[in-house]
């Protein structure tokens, strides 16, 4: 259902009901949002090893934590 809705939004311009020119604001903003999510995923993927290392190192340091 989500995939279908997304397809409709992305293809929305082709099915635009307005016979005057339609700015397609809803579709435009959703596309930006979608691209931002994908862009974020792209960065996370690039830094995935560092993120994993960061959490691994935190875990490894725990035994030496003076508070333990």
């Amino acid at each position, binding site marked *: 259902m989500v995939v279908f809705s997304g397809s409709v939004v992305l293809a929305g311009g082709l099915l*635009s009901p307005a016979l005057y*020119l339609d700015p397609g604001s*809803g579709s435009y903003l959703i596309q930006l949002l979608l691209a931002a999510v*994908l862009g974020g995923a792209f960065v996370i993927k690039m830094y995935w090893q560092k993120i994993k290392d960061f959490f691994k190192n935190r875990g490894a340091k725990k035994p030496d934590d003076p508070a333990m």
Partner: protein
Amino acid sequence: MPESRPPVIFHPFVVAFFPLLSLYLHNAGKLYFSEVVPPLLLALLLSAAFWWITTRLLKDVQKAAIVTTAFFALFFTYGHLLPLLERSLRGLWPALTLDSTGALALLLGCLVGFWLLLIWLLVRAVLNFRVINQFLNGFAIALIIILAYRFGAFVRYREMLWRQADAVAAYEPVTAVGNVSVRPDIYYIVVDGYGRADVLLDLYDLDTTDFLGFLRERGFYTARQSNANYNITLLSLASTLNFDYLDPVAAQLDPDSTNPLPVFNLIQHNRLMQYFQAQGYTVVNFATGYTATELAIADVKRGPTSSLSAFENALINTTPLRLFLSRKQFDSHRDKILYTLEHLPDATQIEGPVFVFAHIVAPHPPFVLAADGTALYPDMGFVIDDGDALTHRLSREAYLRGYREQAQFMSRSLEQALSQILAQSSSPPIIILQGDHGPGAYLDWESLENSNVRERLGILNAYYFPDQEYSALYPTISPVNSFRVVLNQYFGAAYPLLEDRNYFALMAQPYRFMEVTQQVLVP
């Protein structure tokens, strides 16, 4: 390692061209790509220049890239935020519209403030610009993928349209026979939204007796009880210019289709003008700012030298430029109306027979002309819209007043233009002066029950024939029969006149034609 080498940066360019291509694809059925190319190149050029300047100022190409992308993203998103904000706030304030200069300036101020804050954070190195650039590159790649997907959908859509070609082919080419040695000039003047006299008097307190009297005095036949066949311009003109109903087209489409391409193509490649071109006529077309009626097949295209296209107007409305250019947009629209009215008689000077197609977007809104011709600037952003989409912003009273003024101006100007055409024509022409539909102060695009169909479908419909032989015309003749009469009477055709039927369609379901013939009949 991600930090070891600076990323290749391309996002400032993607963010500059994406909004334009997105807007084009959203309206691809109603535009030619050639309209998009000049603003697209300009946007890319401005993006490069902006990046270069900010690099000089910030002395860092990566920071400058972020500032550039943020600027263009906010610049092209500005106009899209307005309807979102309106819808969000409408629950609290139903009558809210964000068209006023104050509201527009406030939103602009917020976005500029956000942008300046971003610059400050970058300069103070609060933000990791390396990571941001990588994010923006990913963002840009995603935008390109989205565009590619939409373009693919559009191509498939075009293919579907060609498969629907049978519907278009259902309109057989004109096969007129007989003596066509006399080829009078033909003027088809569409005055968008010009309603029928009795409706205008009842609902708009507008008396057009003098104008109709002028027409009759000059030898015109006026069909006093005429109604448009369709309530939407594209449908109406597609039907009139192919002198048939659109049922075969609708039958080929999903009933809920909102695909404008079939009717767009029926106007652009209408069989009427194809016939006249084959008969040696020169087709003359005037600029309208409405791509569908700026005809690709026209032999001569006339219009003001500098005027904004439909795409440029729509693009401006998505940017803060609307704050500064709305007067220019209204000026450009008015210029097209005035140009057409002034230059219609010029066609009399063209050698050989001419078919003049002038679609004048008036008295249809926006209301940019007072009765005496004074320039008006509506207190709203520039849109070519009608019905409740407009009365929501303008108020019904303002619509009635604006329409009345603009219709009065049109009547007076048409008298001058028609007088000149008749005086300057070397032999008497054929003139059809017609509204494509009526006005829309009482039109609800989402409801037939809430709309006044008599208002929307009652039209001005006047004919001038060289021999003034009007026996084939009758008071209720509708546009679908206009050119049947002309082709039969002057070009040896034998088209049977069709039953005059009238249809109303909702904007969301333009091919679900609801017959309202009985409702619009004058008692």
